[in-house]
């Protein structure tokens, strides 16, 4: 079956490696400086010192890396790609968008001030995260059906 707009299967591994590298990097950085996304980049913009520029570039690379990693994991082909999986993928995507915006509406109502900024930042990746979790959960539970049904 022809599938459009999907990465080759190997891209999943690339995505996982990318996220693991970023997670390790962030962990080390957090340990050394006490924060991943430095707030100095917003507070002191004129003129921007060299180390703040570096911080901004680091942040950009990290954010793009996280998004690319999640996209690769979510939208790479499975080993045997067929129409049932395509439908499962689209279902999961729809489910993820509903859940994401449902939670987002709750956050709009109940969270204010600076805390809401972190909600918006998390919201950049949560649709992809929810999609990946739901899609793979469904594959896992379908595989469990096969085991129950072993013939």
């Amino acid at each position, binding site marked *: 079956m022809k599938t459009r707009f999907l990465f080759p299967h190997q891209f999943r591994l690339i995505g996982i490696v990318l996220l693991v590298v970023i997670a390790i990097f962030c962990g080390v950085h957090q340990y050394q400086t006490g924060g991943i996304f430095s707030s100095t980049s917003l507070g002191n913009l004129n003129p921007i010192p060299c180390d703040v520029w570096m911080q901004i570039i680091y942040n950009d690379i990290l954010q793009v890396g996280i998004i690319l990693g999640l996209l690769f994991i979510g939208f790479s082909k499975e080993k045997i790609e067929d129409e*049932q999986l395509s439908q499962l993928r689209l279902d999961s995507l729809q489910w993820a968008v509903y859940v994401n915006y449902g939670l987002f509406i709750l956050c709009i109502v109940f969270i204010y001030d600076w805390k809401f900024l972190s909600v918006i930042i998390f919201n950049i990746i949560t649709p992809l995260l929810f999609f990946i979790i739901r899609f793979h959960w469904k*594959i896992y539970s*379908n*595989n469990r059906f096969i085991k129950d049904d072993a013939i």
Partner: protein
Amino acid sequence: MKNTIRVERAIKNITQADLADLIGVSRQTINTIESNRYVPSTVLALKIARVFGKAVEEIFILEEED
């Protein structure tokens, strides 16, 4: 829509995995079709019917609520 794939497989004595290999889908897909959790496309239904050498209507049967 119900189907008789399980019966046809038993007659032909092939497993879900064999059928999946014959028509180029995953075993999971065959399992979801057999347990009525997924309705296959026309192309897939025709391929399944061809494996069993029968007409599509003999394998996939409409039900009242369809």
